[in-house]
């Protein structure tokens, strides 16, 4: 399997956006943020319309056959892609870590799966590790204090976290504060959030308490699933704080002019 640190350089290549099923249906503006940032950097972006889902929800619940059927659709949708970028650590981890498992014994799709694995990047690691870009020359209109929630799959399977902090750290008017237990799971875990909703809710409560206690007004994450879980808990508890996707904050800063 091409370990994610062995992927060929994506520099100079066209990017095919994998927007993820969740962002497609619930947060399309985040997808647009990614497009805007990439095009701002002079990168050609396309969006294969045949894309659906990476297959993670079924896979994490043990339904490997059904997951694979959907994963094959992913392979088909991206058959002409040179580089795939996705604003989701968990979806990127699904492709990078689990597609090799799913397609290990599949003579028909194994080679294509390996090719896809070698060209797939999570959004922040694409910018920083893939392209070497650490400063988008962005500026937020208002000074804002942020703190990071590290989404589990991205952090532990892909080593994400530093890239996003570097990018946000270079945004003018952005201050980065600490979130206590930033590396502890928010409790989403896919269908776990509903199958074991009491436990998911208890994990969420601890996360909400930590967020409320933080100096940050806004929590940053690279995964819309975590974002949905945390915002769901924050609004239920009447908190003034919100969780935003890193792409949206960076794109917002592109609008502002650096002095």
């Amino acid at each position, binding site marked *: 399997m091409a370990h994610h640190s062995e992927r060929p350089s994506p520099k100079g290549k066209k990017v095919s956006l994998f927007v993820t099923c969740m962002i497609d249906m619930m947060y399309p503006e985040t997808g647009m943020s990614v497009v805007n940032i990439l095009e701002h950097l002079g990168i050609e972006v396309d969006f294969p*319309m045949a894309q659906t889902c990476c297959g993670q929800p079924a896979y994490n619940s043990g339904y490997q056959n059904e997951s694979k059927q959907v994963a094959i659709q992913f392979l088909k949708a991206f058959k002409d892609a040179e580089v795939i970028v996705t604003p989701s650590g968990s979806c990127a981890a699904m492709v990078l870590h689990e597609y090799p498992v799913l397609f290990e014994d599949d003579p028909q799709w194994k080679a294509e799966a390996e090719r896809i694995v070698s060209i797939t990047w999570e959004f922040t690691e694409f910018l920083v590790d893939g392209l070497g870009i650490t400063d988008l020359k962005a500026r937020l209109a208002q000074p804002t204090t942020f703190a990071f929630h590290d989404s589990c799959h991205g952090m532990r399977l892909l080593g994400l976290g530093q890239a996003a902090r570097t990018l946000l750290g270079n945004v003018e008017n952005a201050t980065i504060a600490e979130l206590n237990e930033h590396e502890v799971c928010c*409790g989403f875990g896919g269908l776990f959030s509903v199958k074991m909703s009491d436990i998911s809710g208890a994990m969420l409560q601890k996360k909400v308490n930590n967020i409320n206690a933080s100096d940050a007004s806004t929590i940053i994450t690279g995964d819309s699933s975590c974002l949905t879980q945390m915002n769901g808990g924050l609004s239920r508890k009447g908190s003034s704080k919100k969780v935003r996707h890193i792409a949206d904050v960076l794109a917002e800063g592109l609008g502002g002019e650096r002095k």
Partner: protein
Amino acid sequence: MKVESQNFIPAAQIAIRNPNIQEAVTTGTRNSYVKRNIAMSTPTLEHGEAMRMQAAEAKRRALRNLPDLLEKAEANMKANGITVEWAQTSQEVCKLVVDIAKKHNVHLVAKSKSMVTEEVALNDILEAEGMEVIETDLGEFIVQIGKTHPSHLLAPIIHMTKPEIRDLMVKELGMTPTDDAGEMTKFAQAHLRRYFLEADMGISGGNFILAETGSICLVTNEGNGRMCTTLPRVHIAVVGIEKVVESVKDYATLTQVLPRSGTGQVMTVYTHMINGPRQLGETDGPEHVYVILVDNGRTKIYDTDYAESLACIRCGACQNACPVYRSTGGLAYGWVYAGPIGAIVTPLLVGMENASPLPQASSLCGACKQVCPVNIDIPRMLLELRHDLVEQGETGKIWDIGIKFWAIGNKSPRLFQMGGSMARFGRKHVLKNNLPGPLGGWTDYRDFPNFAPKSFHQLWKERQAAKNSHNGGSNNG
């Protein structure tokens, strides 16, 4: 111990709503997790990670060579004067212990902590044979007088608050009420001291069996482990077959990553290596030392893709790191082994049909693997067990059907986009703030957002169309 793991979800719910359990388990696990992180990144994180990999290799190599190492360990232990017995089942373990006890005219047994003896419910059998058994690890002693079960690999009563422990000791032992942990400990120590001196037999577990030297290796902090294994005439160590390690070099690594990972200590207070019974000219030490090598389902696990779970050195780090365990405590898991490692070995040892909720009791966050001193890939095995559950039909019809529909909807781009529209409609007009059916648990604890008025697919299509017409387009019309 009786298996009650099928009750996990309601038991977890009760635990979550119990403020005492919440306070005790949250504080206890957080505390140990933070200490572990410090100990395993000293002097640097890189070094800690390298030691983890070294420990991981040591256990896997031992497992690869397990039958040969068991024979070597047995030969060396025998040469050292230890009697070695083998037991396949719970009943055999208990019968062996009873027979040894009867042979040596044992009436009083002092026990040091052993999870394997919990598996086989040894205490109940000994008591049925008319022996008195006293647990000497402070936490296990409280468990015994409270007639409950240990909830954590290292800290048996991590789920109890100090007032609860105090009240139990007042009620069952006549302790004068005090909120001072030192006073409570002193009371327990005074109560237990005579048992060490009067016991005929000591029973311990074993953290490692060192094949190269034929040694039983134990780590304890309180001193009860040493007392149980040095004061009574007879010592029996009950040890799972997977505890064998190859060499003193491997042991030196493992016996140092274990305390760092479990409690953040650089060494457990007593790192004890027992070669055999007392020798000619010695004035203390047991006259007879026995080891019972226990299978009880381990050979079955060895023959599966889950053999890696046998690398566990029972340090408890995964329990301390796990956000699910932190919310539920260990008793909800319904058997001896709780938390991440418990979610794997319990169904493997007692049967999937008796513990089917446990592999689901995880958000797959991966914290367990990150802290495991032997780098067991617990998330990978949880995923595989979930796959097994599906294959064995243990997941519930509603999910089987739901996922089939999900697959149909996501295989086809057209159906996917249609499904999105329907979801949008349904969310806005029909279900309002609720999700359908089994997904309804979401809104018990959090709000659910609206679906976007237009999907990204739609927005992109419109954007491309606008671009093309703006370009005066080759696509006119």
